[in-house]
């Protein structure tokens, strides 16, 4: 799947709660309807981004995938600003 996105956030190496907090900051800079791609190494970010999208009224999780970065997993999230 290749998801379209407008901006990318590199959250590799960051731990809870930083990928979420930084994504929140970045999404605020986007226009409504735009998509932020977040690349993280924190496995917890998978569930965290799902939880965020479930609770927050202004974001939608349009996609999640796990890629491999030389054997180490990379967790990729696509978050859309909806309001």
């Amino acid at each position, binding site marked *: 799947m290749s998801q379209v996105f407008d901006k990318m956030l590199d959250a590799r*190496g*960051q*731990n*809870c*709660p*930083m990928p*979420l*907090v930084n*994504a*929140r900051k970045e999404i605020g800079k986007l226009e409504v309807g735009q998509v932020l791609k977040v690349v993280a190494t924190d496995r917890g970010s998978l569930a*965290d981004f799902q*939880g*965020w999208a479930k*609770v*927050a*009224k*202004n974001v939608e999780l349009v996609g999640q995938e796990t890629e491999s970065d030389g054997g180490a997993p990379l967790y990729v999230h696509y978050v859309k600003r909806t309001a």
Partner: protein
Amino acid sequence: MDAQVEAGITTDPSRMRALEEKLRDLEKRLAQVEGQVAEDRVSMVVFSGDLDRVLAAFVIATGAAAMGQQVSMFFTFWGLSAIKKDTHISGKSLFQKMMALMSPGSSESLPVSKMNYFGVGAKMLRSMMKDRNVSSLEELMALARELGVKMIACEMSRDVMGIQESELIPGLEFGGVASFLADSLKSRTSLFI
């Protein structure tokens, strides 16, 4: 609506009054219900002055704020150590001085709840967190501030322990139990840490 019925309602003054009264009553009840509905809010009492517990409090606070929640943190008793920037001795009673000397001087010298070994454990934990690129307590506190987390210092315990306002970090509110309850009663989640 049937024109005749409508005319009947609008021309019958007692019926109109009854309806108006009912409407007023409903509006009042709606306002009451609206006042009781939980907001997107998380509130916490931070009672502990242990580094590990305070860290948990700030991870939850910053996470919740990032998820779009309003966050209130109420610092009381040992939790006040977490929002201290330094410690003064002058202007305190004997017991207050003793307490000040035996309490952490600032957030940077909080002990861990287990395996502290006179501060070695806390230093070890901080170093291990740094190795794993986890934000320090002070970074999380700055972040909480930036995300608009409300921090309230308990005025009563501050006064009892003789902690002066000048010893605390700036930007705090001061309040009592009602200021916490006013927020916690409107919260979906309320924690005691």
